[in-house]
């Protein structure tokens, strides 16, 4: 009887061929659409490409940041997303590169203007050491809340940076002091010129973390 049962109309070889063919056809039908739809994710996660062009943008001068508060400044990066993905032919039309407006929060460490700048002549170029010193004292933060990305602002009454959405609170240095955010504010890559201008790049880091993509900024 068992011998009888094993008489399958389909031979082992046929079965394997069917399986192989099925796998091939199945892959041909599903992989291209999936990859097509996941294109932006692949470009970001796998290839590490960003929609924002890698360039320095100028903010105000270090002389303009007041003591004891965080000021907001708008900066426009160049965003090239999907349909204007940096093809030369597309670039030439000039209508498809969209500005990405970011709000940058600027403050001095603990709200104190560094000694380097006290009573200084603004015309005199800053030295390498002075710029390094200023860089250590300057907070260049994204106003996007580290929780869910809502726009935070400096509250004059509370003397802290507050988020309107879920009550995230940060101190003047952007360190998390209350509410749901898991860590402090995202920080921009920045540098200070000899004239004291602040340049920022659309590149981020958090103190004490190796995360590099806020995604919502």
């Amino acid at each position, binding site marked *: 009887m068992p011998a009888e049962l094993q008489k399958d109309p389909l031979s082992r070889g046929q079965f394997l061929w069917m399986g192989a063919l099925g796998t091939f056809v199945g892959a041909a039908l599903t992989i*291209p*659409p999936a*990859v*097509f*739809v*996941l*294109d932006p994710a*692949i470009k970001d996660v796998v290839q590490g490409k960003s929609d924002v062009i890698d360039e320095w943008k100028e903010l105000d001068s270090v002389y303009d940041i007041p003591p004891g508060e965080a000021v907001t400044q708008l900066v426009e990066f160049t965003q090239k997303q*999907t*349909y*204007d*993905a940096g*093809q030369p*032919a*597309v670039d030439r*039309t000039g*209508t*498809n590169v969209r500005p990405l407006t970011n709000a940058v929060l600027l403050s001095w460490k603990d709200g104190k203007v560094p000694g380097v700048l006290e009573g200084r002549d603004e015309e005199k170029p800053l030295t390498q050491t002075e710029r390094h010193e200023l860089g250590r004292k300057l907070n260049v933060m994204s106003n996007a809340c580290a929780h869910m990305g809502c726009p935070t602002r400096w509250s004059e009454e509370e003397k802290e940076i507050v988020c309107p959405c879920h009550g995230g609170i940060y101190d003047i240095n952007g360190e998390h002091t209350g509410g749901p955010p898991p860590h402090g504010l995202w920080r921009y890559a920045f540098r200070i010129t000899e004239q004291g201008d602040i340049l920022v790049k659309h590149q981020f880091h958090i103190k004490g973390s190796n995360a590099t993509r806020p995604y919502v900024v």
Partner: protein
Amino acid sequence: MGRDLADWMEERTGIVSLTQKLLYEPVPKRGTWLYTLGSATLFLITLQFLTGILLLFYYVPSADDAWDSIYYVMNDAYFGQYIRGIHFWSANALLLVIGLHMMRTFLSGSYKAPREMNWVVGVFLILIVTILAFSGYALRWDQEGFWAWEVGAKIASYTPFIGGWAITTLLGGDTAGPATLSRVFALHVWLLPAALAPLIGIHLYLLRKHGEYGAPFEYAERLSELRKQQQMRAYDEMEEDEL
């Protein structure tokens, strides 16, 4: 295990018997390949729906970006050329296959009673597919597509009495511009497919209701089976009457 699952589903949804009902349909012995043209049409339309949905992930229906978004699909997106190529070529093949399907129906006399309504539905389907193809052409928003739509609208403007209404409706104004593209997009992506889908359903329903057309002698077995059933039913009724 598989059988248990099938039984479980059948008991709750009737899916197995439904599938059987949908799959098995007697067709005439002669000219079998000619009877696959309808299925080929359905297959190509399904392809249109699927690849069309995928293209919507990148297409931007605005006069500024439409062309650029397609440029992106064709040059930068993974499998972009492949997906759009299928959409484009299966649309072309669709019109060809529909034409052949219609010709087969005509030449084999399949439009005759009681199948006239299915012919009528088919005519509406071919009309919708033609407008779909034409509007898809315009969505590219390149010189060819733009002027094709302009010419099409212009042709519509020669309609007696309502020409002015026709062209302004098709252009979304008295000139071709951004509003035109929005309109073409709405037609191509929403209105026409939404009209197409139920009509396909009706087309298939009517087909299954009357069966594939073929010369009666090819149906001999089927007809004798039917007569036997009718006879049995008549006997049953007679017996019930006697009781």
